[in-house]
């Protein structure tokens, strides 16, 4: 199975081309933010150096969110259009789960963390098993203080993963003491190779058209509007003419 895996949820851009669990080519770039310009360019280069053609691919795996809205749309648009146009499998995985793949110790609790600014996090809690990370607390958009309260029910060590953990490290350490654990260097970055290998085991998306980013957050305009119009969605507002 030839797999293309991609994560552009935050500042890092990570792309990998695999054949089953064999990594053919992989790249992670952290120095730029123009995923819209670099993602397809990197994919083109890596597929070429892997000595494959686009049509050789069997599956595309993307980190679906949460994260930067634009970044998520780049990965999700690539994933859904590639899957649709080549008639290949599509797998979307949580960008937070993707980060927790960097921790391999079975039984360990992992809290992948993105800074959503204003003391708010995109985060979730996973437990590492032999079949990969299993969700313990769902991915959410939550204030730092509220999140500490949720984590207080666990009297064991938690590994916080992600480049943004540094922004909260002192407060996490103060709160959790020796139960606070972190990782260093490359383990704070999403690794598309790991995302691809994990994604090979996951069930593909059945309806590609409805595949969209997990923003975990309504737009401000919509949330204001929904307060006035409870219970109404937004998809039905688009129509072909």
């Amino acid at each position, binding site marked *: 199975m030839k797999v293309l895996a991609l994560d552009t949820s935050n500042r890092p851009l990570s792309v990998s081309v695999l054949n089953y669990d064999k990594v053919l080519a992989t790249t992670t770039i952290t120095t730029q933010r123009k995923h*819209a310009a670099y993602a397809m360019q990197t994919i083109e280069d890596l597929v070429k150096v892997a000595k494959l053609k686009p049509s050789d691919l069997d599956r595309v795996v993307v980190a679906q969110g949460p994260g930067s809205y*634009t970044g998520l749309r780049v990965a999700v648009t690539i994933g859904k259009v590639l899957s649709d*146009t080549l008639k290949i499998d599509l797998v979307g995985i949580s960008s937070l789960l993707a980060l927790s793949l960097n921790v391999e110790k079975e039984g360990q609790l992992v809290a992948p963390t993105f800074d959503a600014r204003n003391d708010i996090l995109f985060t979730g809690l996973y437990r590492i098993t032999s079949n990969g990370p299993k969700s313990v607390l769902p991915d959410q958009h939550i204030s730092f203080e509220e999140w500490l309260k949720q984590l207080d029910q666990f009297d064991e060590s938690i590994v916080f993963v992600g480049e943004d953990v540094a922004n909260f490290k002192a407060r996490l350490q103060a709160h959790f003491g020796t139960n606070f654990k972190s990782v260093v260097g490359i383990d704070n970055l999403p690794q598309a190779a790991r995302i691809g290998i994990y994604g090979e085991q996951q069930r593909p998306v059945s309806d590609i058209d409805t595949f969209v980013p997990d923003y975990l957050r309504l*737009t401000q305009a919509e949330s204001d509007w929904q307060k006035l119009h409870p219970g109404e969605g937004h998809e039905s507002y688009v*129509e072909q003419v």
Partner: protein
Amino acid sequence: MKNENSLILSFETSCDETSVAVIKNGKEILSNIVATQIKSHQRFGGVVPEVASRHHIEQITICLNDALQKAGVTYSDLTGVAITYGPGLVGSLLVGITAAKVVAWAHQLPLIPVNHIAGHIYATNFDHPIEFPALALVVSGGHTELVWMPKEGEFKIIGETRDDAAGETYDKIGRVLGINYPAGPQVDQMAHLGHDTFAFPRAMEKNDNFDFSFSGLKSAFINTVHHADQINATLDKNDLATSFQQAVIDVLVSKAMRALDKYPAKEFILAGGVAANRGLRERLDQELEKRDVEFVKAPLKLCGDNAAMIGAAAEMLQRHGAKADMSLNANPGLEFEWAENEEE
């Protein structure tokens, strides 16, 4: 066997319409799927960029498959993939650009970048091929500009709005009249029922350049209505609409006619969303009848944003060597070059 025909798959997602089309030889619309978000943005009184981007990603594969199916073509029939890369909303542009790049790469097809304004102008290329030199007035919710085309493939701006686009002004005064976005069609209708009694200012009508300005008109309109509200006077809404539309049309038409004096074109093109405005079409009909120039209006169903017009422009651009690679990015402020100001 070499495919003799040009068959372009085109994408357009620069604002609040997700559109995919298949265009044969730049002239024949095999399909033109347009999913409009108007109802969604009406909730907010105007286009919310983040909401627009989210809708594009919901619609993109649906529109793509509908366009191919309706055209009865497969990827192996195509000779290129075209995409609007600016001007427009960056988040919206990116969904279409990314989709177009994926399709072009997956099927190893040339990628043709298209300026949205060139697309609007080429909406007139279906009924009859554009004859050069041509002068185009492109008016919509996002743009108001005069474009000089000395020959095929050359686009030069000779004037543009200094503030609001004409269509944007319609939406803003529409709000004051209690008309939901987009207000253009209803204001146009009301303008045919009233009289120009308010004598709103015609900004820059006397200036030498070909630039437009609508913010003074907008303020005068809003002040007039607010003042009447304060003294509990009731103004005739149709008269307000007529007076407003007359001022907009006077500015657009007088600048366009002066541009024609300086840039003698074989053909005068009216394109963009506001090109559907009946008052503007009628007035230009009258003015241009007196001149030795052919007046070409974008077909009503192709005035708004759509991918068919992008495919038509792309066919011409591809003949002139336009192509992009996988590094293509959105250019939200994309503009044609300005024409040289030889004289004065």
